[in-house]
């Protein structure tokens, strides 16, 4: 049981380090509170945003925390690949720069898997190959417009 846990933890941590570095230009890692008895303690994240000192998750800003958490989601998805992904406003707390970094990572990954992202961010819409709009112009009924092929 412990062996299996460490196998997963080490592999996930590898991917987490890669993903966070690619997204933010900084470094981050997963940390066990009790490395010898993992089930006695929890799991936290130590992140060093680009050009800053390393800090634990609670000391980061709102956007920095959500980028560190999103990187964990991407790392888990790399660990267990799937043919298609759906992200519903996962870029919510990010500024344009960080949302752009997430959009380019998705764009890169969209070569070998299908990505569908729901977003209000300009940076995400610009990077996509296809865009759909959902509206409720007629009261009480959702419609879909577009399927606009940007040939991006």
């Amino acid at each position, binding site marked *: *049981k412990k062996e299996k*846990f460490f*196998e*997963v933890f080490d592999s*996930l941590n590898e991917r987490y380090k890669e993903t966070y570095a690619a997204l933010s230009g900084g470094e981050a890692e997963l940390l*066990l*509170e009790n490395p010898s008895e*993992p*089930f006695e*303690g*929890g*799991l*936290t994240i130590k992140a060093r945003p680009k050009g800053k000192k390393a800090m634990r998750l609670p000391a980061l800003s709102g956007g920095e925390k*959500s980028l560190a*958490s*999103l990187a*964990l*989601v991407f790392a*888990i*998805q790399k660990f*267990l*690949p*799937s*043919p*298609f*992904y*759906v992200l*519903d*406003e*996962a870029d*919510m*707390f990010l500024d344009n720069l960080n949302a752009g970094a997430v959009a380019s990572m*998705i*764009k890169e990954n*969209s*070569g070998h898997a*299908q990505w*569908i*992202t*729901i*977003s*209000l961010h300009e940076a995400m819409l610009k*990077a*996509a*190959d*296809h865009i*759909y*709009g*959902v*509206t*409720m112009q007629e*009261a*009480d*009924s*959702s*419609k*879909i417009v577009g*399927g606009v*092929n940007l040939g*991006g």
Partner: protein
Amino acid sequence: MYLKKLEVDKFKSFSKHLTVPLFPGFTAITGPNGSGKSNLCDAILFVLGPKSPKTVRAGRLTDLIYNGGRSKQAASQCKVSLVFDNEDRTIPIESGEVTLTRVIRKVKKENDPDGYYSYFYINDRSASLNDFTNLLSNSGMNGYNIIQQGTITRLVDMVPSERRKLIDDLA
């Protein structure tokens, strides 16, 4: 394998039968607050997802059926189909396309006003939720591939012991 088409009919805020062609690569969906974006995500989870109505933000499964809003007629059933491209046979079925359909139909029973029947179809042939689960077990639809609105916030606010459970589940 990829999701080729999403068909919704009287599911949540979609009052009409709608077909959404999807493509490999990167697709973005946008629109105003309350327009129905997350309802599309719920439609995918409704077919693929776990059994609890809570996953698709509903109290009861019948809440997923178009309720007519202020001015229209409430529907009595809703239907969602996911059409997968299966050229690479990731789904163990001998066909280039696999359509998974789920239907909820309201049924008035004496003792239960919210009674309903739930139907599942694979390529238009009747099936069960277990058939869906077995069919998809090797396809990578592991639940980590669909991130609902609010998940990132929950992940940020998790206490360390909860976060560790993510690893426990993966092991």
